[in-house]
């Protein structure tokens, strides 16, 4: 492992056997002794053996068994008693378990949802043995088609998952006696300071649920203070402000959208649309930074305007905000699938940490007595604690930033009255102007097509595209006058066929020009070879005018020329001088 000069490896335990995610880790001084502990909700095997673990320094200090899979761990102050020790809230299933001094203190249950009446009736009849197992299965299965899997209660979902008749019967017999309830689960959890913004002020819990709601809980009575709804399931929350004054909750949802909730709003306002599903959301100052599944890191302002977006070299596993108070800097750490942790300052990469495995969870903060500590949990269960050196600096050394040209302000002239009037006119008469333009365009195309057809019919073009005699002609006028030399180059452009019986004829007004050789016989034209035919042309007019000379290429006795070139003759010098 290439050691990094900015980070000290304080602890490395590859055999810690932790299975957790960033949302299930927290750092807090749980005992008021000035030493921050690491709280990890361990998912165990993913099915059982879930534990709430607390590390003091490098030692595992305590373990509490959790009943269900944890989805979030957060520490918050729920009262003003001394010493000021925070409570731990563990979100798990439909419940929030509150621990004080690492002892179970309270369990909050999410409000139940309305059960589908058809489903309720079906289970009621099944309880009274009016429906047998297979009929119940059919009713529930058709209901699932109708309202979707998530519209059913957990019991119906489980029942539909039973593979055969006997297990379905067993399940029904076991559960039919209980009341049918439909519960939602917590997807994400955060805190919101209630009325003071100090570090150890009382905070409310903010919960996001699978039923696409946001609940704000009172920290003392654990009642729902405020309930808000979203169009999709929230997955990441960022909360700022005070509950009693003004607050703002930015939510990244499973549908790839970001919504904003403010005090007084009941429904989330769409703020930004992501290109893919979010894998992490953090907020710093007035910007929101979101990593998405399509390997991008986006930065938005509070209004949802995208400030920048960078392509990352790999898939992002987790995202963490590094707030360095000593340097008054906020950095973003991204764990990538290629065993690296990249640290960005805005959009500039300032540091890279290499790990021996993929990082599945990260938490930065005060751990023990050290302020700038980064705790990494690896995919294989390892625990790594990195401490930022006192002397570490994160300066942007590379000059990859915006170039000088982008900074220079363009000198844009002021809008004149004429410009404004013209714009107004264009805005008002846009339909008419467009029609006129289209009309003229069609006419132009028509006349172009007509001239083209005419040119083809009269063979008055210098390149013959006919299949039998593909020829190219170019003519040049040499000399100043009154005698000019006309030089005609002929080329056979066919791949193999030679051309025979060709002749060049010069045609002009005999009052203006006299041609020395008006008819030149061309020998056999081999493909690719340029043949030059030349003649002298004398200007005989004394009026000092110039005219056009037509060059025809004819074949045999045909009355229609193969090619035509029109040469605009220059004025003879002698007469110009005269």
């Amino acid at each position, binding site marked *: 492992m290439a050691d990094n000069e900015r980070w000290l490896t304080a*602890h490395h335990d590859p055999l810690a056997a932790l299975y957790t995610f960033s949302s299930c880790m927290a750092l807090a001084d749980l005992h008021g002794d000035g030493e921050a502990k690491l709280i990890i909700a361990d998912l165990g095997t993913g099915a059982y053996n879930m534990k709430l673990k607390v590390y003091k320094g490098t030692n595992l200090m305590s373990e509490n068994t959790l009943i269900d899979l944890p989805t979030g761990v957060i520490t918050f102050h729920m009262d003003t008693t001394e010493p000021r020790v925070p409570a731990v809230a563990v979100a798990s299933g439909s419940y929030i378990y509150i621990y004080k001094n690492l002892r179970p203190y309270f369990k909050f249950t999410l409000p139940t949802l309305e059960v589908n009446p058809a489903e309720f009736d079906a289970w009621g009849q099944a309880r009274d043995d009016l429906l047998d197992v297979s009929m119940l299965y059919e009713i529930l299965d058709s209901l699932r088609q109708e309202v979707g899997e998530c519209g059913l209660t957990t019991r119906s979902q489980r029942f539909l998952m039973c593979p055969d008749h006997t297990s379905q019967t067993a399940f029904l017999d076991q559960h039919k006696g209980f009341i049918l309830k439909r519960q939602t689960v917590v997807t994400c959890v955060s805190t919101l300071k209630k009325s003071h913004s100090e570090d150890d002020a009382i905070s409310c819990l903010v919960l996001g649920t699978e039923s696409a709601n946001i609940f704000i809980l009172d920290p003392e009575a654990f009642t729902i203070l405020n309930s808000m709804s979203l169009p999709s399931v929230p997955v990441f929350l960022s909360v700022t402000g005070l509950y009693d004054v003004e607050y703002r909750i930015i939510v990244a949802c499973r549908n790839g959208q970001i919504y904003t909730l403010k005090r007084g709003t009941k429904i989330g306002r769409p703020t930004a649309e992501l290109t893919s599903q979010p894998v992490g959301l953090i907020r710093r100052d007035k910007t929101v930074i979101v990593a998405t599944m399509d390997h991008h890191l986006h930065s938005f302002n509070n209004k949802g305007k995208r400030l920048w977006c960078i392509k990352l070299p790999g898939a992002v596993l987790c995202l963490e905000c590094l707030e360095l108070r000593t340097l008054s800097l906020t950095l973003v750490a991204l764990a990538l699938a290629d065993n690296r942790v990249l640290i960005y300052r805005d959009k500039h990469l300032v540091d890279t940490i290499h790990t021996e495995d993929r990082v599945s969870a990260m938490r930065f903060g005060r751990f023990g007595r050290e302020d700038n500590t980064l705790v990494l949990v690896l995919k294989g269960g390892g625990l790594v*604690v990195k401490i930022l050196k*006192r002397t570490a600096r994160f300066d942007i050394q590379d000059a990859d930033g915006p170039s000088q040209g982008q900074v220079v302000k363009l000198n844009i002239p002021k809008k004149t009255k004429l410009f404004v009037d013209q714009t107004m006119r264009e805005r008002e008469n846009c339909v008419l102007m467009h029609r006129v333009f289209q009309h003229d365009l069609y006419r132009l195309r028509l006349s172009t097509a007509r001239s083209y057809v005419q040119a083809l019919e009269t063979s008055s073009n210098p390149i013959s595209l006919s299949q039998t005699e593909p020829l190219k002609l170019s003519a040049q006028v040499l000399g100043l006058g009154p005698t000019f030399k006309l030089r005609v180059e002929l080329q056979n452009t066919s791949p193999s066929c030679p051309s025979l019986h060709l002749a060049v004829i010069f045609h002009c007004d005999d009052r203006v020009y006299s041609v020395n050789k008006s008819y030149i016989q061309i020998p056999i034209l081999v493909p690719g070879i340029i043949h030059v035919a030349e003649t002298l042309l004398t200007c005989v007019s004394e009026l000092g005018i110039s005219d056009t000379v037509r060059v025809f290429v004819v074949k045999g006795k045909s009355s229609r020329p193969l090619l035509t070139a029109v040469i605009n003759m220059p004025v003879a010098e002698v007469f110009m001088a005269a």
Partner: protein
Amino acid sequence: MGVFDKLVFALGLKKREASVLVIGLDNSGKSTMLNHFKSEDQKSTEIVPTVGFNVEKFKARNVGFTAFDMSGQGRYRSLWEHYYHDCQGVIFVVDSSDKLRLVVAKDELDMFLQHPEIRTRRLPILFFANKMDVREAVSSVKVSAALGLERITNKPWHITASNAITGDGLHEGVEWLTNQIKENLNK
């Protein structure tokens, strides 16, 4: 140094003066350790985190020590280097129960040893592997290994397990330091 001076010092008629620098991470027990050397009436009952630095004077075996008790907090550690120039000895206190931050202590020690004022001098360094009474504390041998003390070849050093609250091991350590400073002064 003349024969007369030597005689005077040997008889203990004149005291020698030496200033020592006390450094180490925050919460390692530097102020508590120095508190132990104060006379009964000067002892403070409650030790609070040092801000900046404190100057303490104490006497050990005929040598008057002026100890600069530096604050170990991260933001004050940059002050340490200003006192490197005029010290005759260094006491480096390590919290041996804080395994997580041994690496930070090592980092600070390395920066101290690499400092131009220190690198070339034959300065005696006394290490206190403090807080030996705490249950999670590691032995002084392990602290010595974690700090990489075996790499220090051009300076005399000594490590002592200590408990600054009860005073265990402190006198043993300071005795070693006094001998080293005396040797240096007699040269």
